């Protein structure tokens, strides 16, 4: 097991690994998306309060979750790259960042499109909204710093420090924002609650979440191939590959 991990962590091996695995996960993602969308957009009954407006949930919630777990994933990978000087981990972080940022963006956009019919406004300064916005900016900062240096190695290390500082800060941000809001209740009331969500609504949601996770995995691998190729362009194995 350990040796397998060790092997996987070597760029040439991982490059080939991704070459084989990514198509498979890609097709499964597509399948899950199809099932989830069919279940969510067609099968599930309208919400008794929100009507068909609630169907945004099937992209909103998976995006929101992936944006948050994606950040943790990215920061941990970057940290491993920084501390153990593992090149592949840094590449993983660099590959994950744009995807995580996309999910954060999607959570924001779908959320505000959902907010208009539910709350009457696209945007309120609510706790979750605010912390999601901040998360997006954390991603932007990471990406900007990662690409800002002429030597990729430097960019990796600098952005890893930022990601780790951000990781420590993330719970603080989350709770501060939460707390700030409860003290200062705006016009917001969250409508959908978990308990009374029916099974026919829940199952598509779970399927969509699984699909988004696999999507993330697939395209992290794809991006990683690009990153590996870019970073290792001067090595012997790349020359052999070509």
């Amino acid at each position, binding site marked *: 097991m350990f040796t397998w991990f060790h092997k996987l962590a070597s760029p040439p091996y991982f490059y080939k690994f991704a070459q084989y695995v990514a198509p498979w996960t890609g097709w499964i993602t597509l399948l899950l998306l199809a099932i989830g969308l069919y279940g969510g957009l067609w099968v599930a009954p309208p919400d008794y309060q929100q009507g068909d407006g609630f169907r945004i949930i099937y992209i909103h919630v998976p995006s929101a979750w992936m944006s948050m777990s994606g950040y943790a994933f990215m920061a941990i990978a970057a940290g491993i790259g920084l501390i153990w000087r593992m090149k592949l981990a840094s590449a993983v972080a660099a590959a994950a960042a744009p995807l995580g940022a996309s999910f954060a963006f999607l959570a924001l956009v779908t959320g505000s499109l959902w907010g208009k019919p539910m709350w009457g406004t696209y945007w309120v300064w609510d706790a979750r909204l605010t912390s999601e916005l901040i998360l997006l900016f954390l991603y932007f*900062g990471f990406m*900007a*710093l990662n690409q*800002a*240096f002429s030597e990729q190695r*430097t960019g990796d*290390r600098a952005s890893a420090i930022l990601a780790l500082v951000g990781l420590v800060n993330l719970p603080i*941000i989350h709770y501060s*924002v939460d707390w700030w809001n409860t*003290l200062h209740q705006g016009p917001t009331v969250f409508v959908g609650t978990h308990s009374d969500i029916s099974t026919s609504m829940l199952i598509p949601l779970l399927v969509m979440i699984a699909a988004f996770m696999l999507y993330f995995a697939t395209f992290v691998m794809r991006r990683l191939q690009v990153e590996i190729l870019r970073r290792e362009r001067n090595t012997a194995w790349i020359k052999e590959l070509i």
Partner: protein
Amino acid sequence: MMDGVFGALVRRDLQLAYRRRGEMVTPLMFFIMVTALFPLGLNPDPALLRTLAPGVIWVAALLAGVVGLESLFKSDYEDGSLELMVLSPVPLELIALIRVLTHWLITGLPVVILAPLMGMLLAFPASAMGTLLTGLLLGTPVLSLLGAVGAALTVGLRRSGMLLPLLILPLAVPVLIFGARSAAMALAGDDVSGPLYLLGAILALTLTLAPFAIAGGLRVSLEN
């Protein structure tokens, strides 16, 4: 020995600051301007101003802290002193911490001192001023430390001025929220020990962790 080093470094940083005392005024001017500008769009109803005062003062203090930060290590990088700092046997963490603290002394502290005056202009009552001051005293060093992390990470970049706020403002949000909240609660006559303790805890956390991030950032910046 460390003692002597500490004193000598603080002395040098203060000396430098004194030579450039002009630059120290900039954040202060910013602070005044931002606070003064707000009531402009509003009707100058004291009751309304009063409730806005905590937020305005905190935002102004935050911005004033960020504006001058870019140059915190920039000149060291450009004139080659940063290499000397990194290559000195004194731990870089210590050198960096001293630099940040002197920076706070000459930019953050004046803002804190001026805050009551600006509060008065915004009709903020004297009874809540203590909380505002304590909050600023605990919060602005955190802002300086976080800012220094960003400054260290971007010092090697040719035009970091713009990137820097992007990096640090998201991290600064909790300080702003707790700070402004505590002042607002004091205004409402509530018990403020909660947010102030939290600010203190954040300060302790940052004070212990940030020096490592700063030193790491400086080392990385020189690698290039």
